[in-house]
């Protein structure tokens, strides 16, 4: 009697275990995200969130990954590093996500790095600064170009134009300062001499004083490491004080908004930008052409707003993760991490990605195209 009872219990247990096993196979792959959807960095987080939702939906409609659906668990950290930390903790402990794609700003990303390193969960950041992947951290990857690459791309262009003396003018924001520092660091490598180094405040509305000083510095070109509306004011003031030297802007203002704000003063300005901005200008044999054209078309059709490189970073982050999970054949965190690190030849919106144990970003200078403003729109610089 007792035996029968035991057998029945064992049978029931086995049955429920089998059921649980079946359910496990159907369990979705959980993608965690913390993004700055509101707040000062909303222009980053907003397109990122939209992109993640769009791509997850599309992948699920096509049958998911490894036969499992993707489930997006996204939180809005409103650009606050402290909040980002809290949400990352929740993603890791409560939501038990398989990977994290997120971190709109360098600040929110760096706040979360120690957590994912301790938890051992693969994390693909969408923020720009070099510090995220330098030195390489075991579980941390990133998709966007760095400001150092932008400096290098600009300096290479200067070299081909035989310009060796450059005047820097930069804003007071985090992006501006970081890029200024990187440019100063890599300038000697390209035999570029920085002959002047001026700054302006984020709240300034007239930079003619700084530009007047640059006029007498003996520079052959001017590089503006800036973000937001400052560079547009610099560009207008640049023509106002009669400067005719070549003017370079950063990838931070690679948008039509900058060209519109600067008006005719922007003519001839050069800047490095992601291919995503100018799919039509790419050669038909460019490997990125198909990817960026499709993403731009889907995004603009669905959200009725211009595509931005930031959304593209989220697209790349998610696709890298999906690729890694597919190659790993499971969501085992260590295997996914190894697969991420061995990503080769992934063609994304930011460029062609080749990761290695020492390079957790995997982009080279070919990821940027050098653009020049001509007739109020972009053209490829030659």
């Amino acid at each position: 009697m007792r035996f029968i009872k035991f057998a029945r219990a064992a049978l029931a247990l086995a049955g429920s275990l089998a059921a649980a096993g079946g359910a496990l196979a159907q369990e979705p792959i959980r993608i965690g995200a913390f993004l700055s959807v509101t707040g000062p960095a909303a222009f980053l987080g907003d397109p990122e969130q939209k992109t993640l939702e769009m791509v997850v939906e599309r992948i699920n409609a096509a049958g998911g990954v490894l036969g499992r659906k993707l489930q997006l668990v996204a939180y809005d950290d409103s650009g606050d590093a402290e909040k980002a930390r809290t949400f990352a903790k929740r993603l890791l402990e409560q939501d038990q996500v398989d990977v994290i794609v997120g971190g709109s700003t360098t600040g929110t990303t760096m706040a979360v790095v120690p957590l994912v390193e301790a938890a051992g969960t693969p994390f693909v950041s969408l923020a720009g600064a070099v510090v995220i992947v330098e030195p390489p951290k075991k579980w941390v990857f990133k998709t966007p170009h760095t400001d150092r690459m932008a400096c290098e791309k600009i300096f290479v262009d200067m070299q081909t134009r035989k310009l060796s003396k450059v005047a820097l003018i930069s804003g007071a924001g985090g992006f501006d300062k970081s890029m200024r520092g990187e440019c100063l660091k890599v300038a000697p490598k390209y035999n570029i001499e920085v002959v002047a180094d001026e700054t302006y405040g984020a709240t300034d509305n007239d930079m003619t004083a700084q530009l007047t000083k640059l006029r007498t510095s003996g520079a052959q070109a001017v590089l503006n490491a800036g973000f937001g509306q400052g560079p547009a004011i610099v560009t207008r003031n640049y023509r106002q004080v009669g400067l005719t030297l070549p003017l370079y802007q950063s990838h931070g203002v690679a948008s039509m908004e900058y060209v519109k704000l600067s008006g005719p003063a922007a003519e001839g300005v050069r800047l490095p930008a992601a291919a995503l901005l100018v799919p039509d200008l790419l050669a038909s044999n460019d490997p990125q052409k198909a990817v960026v054209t499709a993403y731009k078309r889907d995004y603009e059709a669905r959200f009725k707003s211009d595509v931005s490189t930031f959304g593209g970073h989220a697209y790349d982050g998610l696709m890298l993760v999906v690729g890694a999970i597919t190659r790993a054949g499971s969501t085992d965190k260590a295997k996914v991490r190894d697969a991420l690190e061995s990503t080769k030849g992934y063609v994304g919106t930011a460029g062609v990605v080749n990761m290695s144990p020492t390079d957790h970003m995997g982009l080279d200078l070919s990821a940027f195209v050098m653009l020049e403003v001509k007739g109020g729109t972009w053209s490829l610089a030659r």
Partner: protein
Amino acid sequence: MGSNWLQFVASGVTSGAIYALVALGFSIIYNASGAINFAQGEFVMIGGMSAVMLLALGLPLLVALPLAVLVAVIVALLVEKLAIEPARHAGTVTLIIITIGVAMFLRGLAQLLWGKGVHRLPAFSSEQPIEWLGATILPQSLWVMGGAALAVVALSWFYGRTLLGKAMRATSHNRIAAQLVGINTRGVLLASFGLAAGLGALGGVLIAPIAFTSYDSGIMLGLKGFAAAMLGGLGSFTGAVLGGLVLGLLEGLGAGFVSSAYKDAIAFVVILAVLFLMPGGLLGGRGSERV
């Protein structure tokens, strides 16, 4: 080098005129209520952004600009009725905190309504810089300066010669006494909000071709405008203009002759020094005279 310092001055005067226009709005409300209106920068922003929106709707500049000012005035009157008036018996500090809340609310609303983009108005006259002894200045800067000068003249006429203006001054000196002689002190506060917003919005449309406008441009304008108003002496209109110009010139000359990295520090150290020696500001009243 000779033309260099002229350009530094031109740069300073351009920024200074902008700060002056914002500072004037602070002084109006300070005079009427004794409170600092931290939503003043938002009124400026509403002026600029409304003008951008109305132009985008296809209205000509001459129609869009007065309408934009009107929009800001209506918003300010609503703010006064719904947020400031119910709390009129509370202390000045409470009023100030309410205006900070109003500023955040208006900023959020603008973000929802107009998006996060930066916009620019076309220049009123030519875009061609005017050259003088090697220094250049944009015609729009002259518009801003002219606007600030005109505003000061109009304000002193309004406060010195009209009944409503005199009523506002009486209220600022002694609210209870003003009430006793039959002045509608509630109406005065309402009118001063409308006036400050109208002036702020006028500034907003004047500066939008130079400094651009976006949902959050009110923050920086409010901060610099407030500093200018403090420097010139809160409540004094000539002081507001003087404060704005001095602040702008300090920045321009500081950036030109010392270092652009320290220009804000230079400006604020000077402001602190002035306020330390003259707590009322450059033209601030020492006694009860505030206008």
